[in-house]
Structure formats: C-alpha cells, structure tokens
C-alpha cells in the first residue's frame, strides 16, 4: 500500500455541520463527534473511498494513540485498497455530510439506542 496519511482533516463544507453536531452538547470535542460520524458512515454501509480537499485538523497520534482504530478499520474493510487513516478521513467526512443532511435534528440518542431495543 501507499503511504498512509499522518494527519486527518475535514472539508470546508463539512466544518459547519461538525460544529453543529458538537453544539448540541453531547460531545466534548469535534474529534469525538467526528469519530461518531465515522461509525455512523460505517454502519450505514459506506464503502471504501478517499476524500479530497480535507483541511488538516488532527494528528493521527491524537486520533488513534494505541493503533486500535487502525486495526479495527483493517478488520472491517479487509478488501480495501485505501490506507486505514485515509479511509478514516473519508468515513468521517462522509458521516458528517450524511448527518448534516438530516437537517439539524440529528438524533444521536435514537442512533445509539434504536426504538427496537426497549428501555431497561
């Protein structure tokens, strides 16, 4: 594989959506929100890809200090030709875009605890 990215970023168009996600108060940082968006994209079935024009935001050392996220992505996307961190960047941006398109009422609670799972 080609060299993986050392930094990960968000496109200009996604910046507002990310900020909006954080403003609801459930996430303490944009990074936490970005990871959540990435997971959302994976769950939604987004396939491997890469993002262009992402503005640098985080160092991979901050995102994935123990490398477990890279291992996870490699495990989830074994056929992918995209490097893990580049893939992560792609998934984050796709996720943020998708959540942004829901028009403000991003119901994080419902995503975490779907109605099909009854309240304990």
């Amino acid at each position: 594989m080609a060299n993986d990215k050392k930094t990960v970023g968000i496109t200009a168009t996604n910046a507002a959506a990310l900020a909006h996600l954080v403003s609801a108060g459930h996430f303490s940082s944009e990074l936490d929100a970005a990871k959540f968006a990435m997971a959302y994209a994976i769950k939604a079935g987004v396939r491997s890809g890469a993002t262009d024009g992402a503005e640098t935001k985080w160092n991979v050392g901050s995102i994935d200090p123990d490398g477990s996220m890279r291992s996870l992505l490699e495990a989830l996307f074994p056929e992918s030709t995209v490097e893990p961190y580049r893939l992560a960047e792609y998934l984050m941006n796709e996720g943020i875009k998708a959540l942004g398109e829901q028009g403000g009422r991003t119901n994080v609670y419902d995503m975490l605890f779907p109605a099909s799972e009854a309240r304990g």
Partner: protein
Amino acid sequence: MLQIEALHLEDFGPFKGKQSLRFSLEDGVTIIYGENMRGKTSLLNAIRFAFFGKVLGRGRKTLALHKIGNWEQTSLGKFGFQVQLEFREDNHKYRLTRSCHPRSGIVAPSDDSDYTIEYFLSCDGNVMGPQQAETELKRILPEQISRFFLFDGELLQEYEDLLNSETDMGRRISEAIERILGVPVLTTARATLSALKDKSEHREALAAQGDQKTRELGKHLAELHAQRQTLREDTQRLERDLEQARSQKAALEEAMKKKERLAAWLDKRDILERMLREITSRREVKQVELQQAMATAWTALLDEPIRQAAKALRTQEDALQTEIMRHEVLRELQANANSECPACLQVVSPEARKRIEISLAHSTGQDRGQRQRALAAVRRKLAALEDHGGLSQKSALRLLWDAVDDAEMDFANKKSERDEITKQLESVDEEALRKTKTDFEAAIKSIDALEKGIVKSREAIEQYNADAENIQRRLDKLGGGSLAKERRRREIYSNLHRLFDAAVGNYREQLRKRVEADATRHFRALTTEPDYAALKINDSYGLTIIHKDGSDIPVRSAGAEHVVALCLIGALQNNAPLRGPIIIDSPFGRLDRSHTRNIVKALPTMTKQIILLVYDDELPADIARNELKAKLRGEWRLERRSAKHTDLVPRKD
C-alpha cells in the same frame, strides 16, 4: 297572610320550556318529590328570583344569572328565562312576572351584563307602576326576612350566626327579626319624642329669657342645650366613623387573608428557584459525564458491522486453517512412501501417490510461511474486532443519557410552574399588600380610639343632662305663669319619651319570652329526646337547648340544628304580622325517621301553607300521607327527561 297559588316557569334551571306548579289555597302541605340535582333548589330560587331578582347558591352566594337559563335551550341559542308567581295577600290577587333576557342586539350573551331584568306586578288585574310595585313588594316580603320563609335546609350556617351576635350577619338577622316583630314602631317613636323633647326644652329656655327673674337661668340653660346638641352631633359623627372603620376593618381582614395566600406563593416561588438551580448543576455534572462516555460511544454504532466482519473473518480463518492442514497431510504422505493415510489407515496406492504429486505441484506459489502469515493476519483482525466490541458499555451510556434527559424534563416542569406563579404575582402590587397590614393595625387603633371617644362623649352628654336638669328644677321653682305652658309641654314630651324608652325594653323582653315559649312548644312536639326540656333564647334570637336538669346543651348535631331552626321559624310565624308560606328544601335530610315523623305532623301547626321539597328516601310518600292525612294538599314529582331537563309532574301513584 301571603299564600302562593301558582308558580309558572319558563326555561328556568332544569325546567325546560313552560312548566307550572299549582298550590291549593286550603291550609296544609304540598310535597314536591325529586332526587338530588333534579331542581329542588331551583324551585326555591325561582321564588327568590321572582321576588328579589336574585338566585342563591352554596353559602348564600349570589349566582350569575347567565348560568340559570335552561342549558338545553342555551345550547340551541335560546337565552333567558322567566318566572311568574301568582299569590294572594289580604284577599287581593297578585301576579308577579320577572324575566331575564339578553339585551336587544345581543345574540350570544356571555355574562350578566349582557342581560336585562324586567318585572311587572299586577293586583286584582291592575298593573302597578314601577315605584308602587317596588314598595308593595318590599312590604309583602322584605328580603331581609325571606330567609325565614324560603328555608333551605342545607344552609344552616346562617342560623348559627344568630347564636353569635358579634358577627355582622348575626346582628343583621336579629334586626330583621325585630323588624317583623314590630320593634321599630317603638324605637322610631322614641326617636321622634327625643327630638321633640329637645325642641321643647329649648323653647322653655328661650321663654325663660323673656322674664327678668329667670333670664340668667334661661340663658345658661340655652347654652347647655347648645353645647349638648354639639356633643350629640359629634357623637353621631363618631358613631358613623366607627361604623365605617368597622367595615374597613372587615375589608382589610379579607385582604389580609389574600396576603397570606400570596406569601405562600412567594415562598413556593423561592423554593422552585432554588430547585431550578440544583437541577441545573446536577444536569451540568451529568452532561460532563455523558460527554466523557460519548468519547468511546462511536464503537457502539459498530456492533453490527463488527459482527458481520468477524463472521467473514472466521470463515476465512476456517478456510485458511483447513488449507494449511491439508498441505501438512499431503506432504507427509509424499515424504513417507509406505505411509498409511491417517484418515482411512490404508496404504497409499501408487495411483493415489501420483495424484498427490500433481496436487502438490499445482499448489506451489504459496509456501507454508505465507499461509501462516495470512492466518495470523486474519487472527489479528479478529482480535482487533473483539477489542472494540466490548468497549462501548451501552447500558451505562444509556443511563447517563436518561439522567440528562430527566434533569432537563424536571427543569422544564419546574420552570413552567415557577413562571405561572410569577405571572400570578405580577398582577399583584406587593407594595399595596404590605400597606394592608399597616392599614389594618391602624384601623384597629382607630376603632379603639373611636369607641373610647364615644364613651367619653356620652358621659359628657350625661353630665350636660344632669346640669340641665338641675337648672330646670330651679327654673321650675322660680318660673311664673308665662313659663307654665312651656313647662307643661316639656314635661309631656319628657314623660312620653321615657315611656316609650321603657316600652322598647319591655316589648323586646315580652317578645323574646313569647318567641321562646312558642319555640319551646314546637320543640317539645318535634324532638324525640325525652331529656330535652325546652329552648332558651338569647339577645339575638339564638336558641339553646335546655336539658331537663336545667343545664345548657351547648353543641348540637346538624339534625338538631334543623329542628331548632324550624322551631324558630314556627315561633316567628306565630308572632309576626307577616305570615306566609314556609318553603323548605330538604328539611329532613339529616334527621332520623322519628324526628321526620314528628316534624311532618307538627308542620301544619306552624303556618297555613307549607311546601316541602324532598327526595323519596328523605320522606317516603306513605309516611307523609299517614302523618298528614287530609292536610296533605298536593303531591308533585320532578321527573328527569335528561341531565339538563326536568319536568314538573303531579304525582299519580
């Protein structure tokens, strides 16, 4: 003697359309049966409305007339009602019609101001003018004493007021009783004579000044009279001020009660604000905990993808493992020429050996090391998946979310409660309320000062009277013929005044004795308790039960209250010139059968026309018929057509 002949209702209360009740003019009892909520109280109110234009509810509160029109009719857009009363008094036949209708132009009235009330009174067929009609109605049935004829068995509180003459109500009621018993004739006469006595004293003093012998005394006397007059006027002014201060105190007491309510609200608001602050900090703490937990929450979304990926990887793992094992076996078989197949334990045949060789040749490319590495890679991936699988701790996360939500909900609820109270307090002038307390205290002081002032004034007047009498005596000794006539006149007025003054006290006393005797007579006929001997009357016509051993029975049940109240009514009827029907709503509600029987039997002795509004269990028809016999003049039923429609029907069974 007032006697009701007929009551015609139109859309009054539950009585939809035009309905009528007819009463016999023969002495006796008419009974109207109806279950509760059928309209018995409405019938009483219909008569009240006819005479006074008012309708009463619980606690003697005036009800809004807007609510009185039949509800089924109002839902059809037909508003208003009318009552017509036919009655006899002194051999004259009267017809009183009072109606309440929306003002012209108003199609959908919403409160009393949208209505107008009109009434007509005719006597022997001639309609009376408004002024005459008003005077006549006041004479026939003064509102103040209507309570003794239109008797609502449920509202006994006012009767208890009689026992406590301190209350405003108690005083008014005893004044009302005295009015119908003739006391005002004497008190008015006393007042007239007092004024004339003063006038005659003054004339005498003036006349004395015409004679040299008596001039000085005459002047002195005239001065005393003038000063006494001033004092009297002052006293009257003080008495008026006192009356005003007393009503002001009553009003302030009302306001104070209201203030207590507001103080309670203010407290509640403060508590709510404190709670809001607590909830906010609680929520903030939980919010931070939630955010911390959310840092790893993203893995919770991946449960499904991780499971799918793990499944795929395991399949891969199995395949790789199988492949590796197969090659191991094949190579072993290739290496040992005479080896047995570990599976079937047969020697490998030359044909089979050839096939093994070909198979091995085909599968080169991937040597053992590569295969092992691939398997390891798959196993690493599986491990990575398993690592993340356990991280999320979904249930703990959910608890935190719910805690934050609950705190927000709690906050919202308490905030709206607090806002509601704030709104209520907005329209209140807290400054004004604080002032109320100080005003109240001032009113009490003022009343105290006025009362003391009045006492002093009266004492001073007494002093003047004494001095004047002194001088009067000396004048009498000195005075000659010219003064004689004045003196005679003055003596007559003075004696007349003293006579009527004494008469007031005597008459009141006799009256009370007569009322007490009549009430006791009724009581002994009505009560079932053999130890109860009599009723004792107090200054305000309150009655206490006396035990046969002479002691007072201070407290009594609601049932006993009923009986005593009936005795008073009977006694008043016996002694009053104003005789009329007694109309009682639920007279027996709290009484047992024996009391009920006694009362039913005794009622006809109290007055000529009695109308009872009862329910079946209260007074079973057979008891009424047995006890009253021929005195039972009519029986009616209130029959239910719907919840808002009752019909008046003569009882046939």
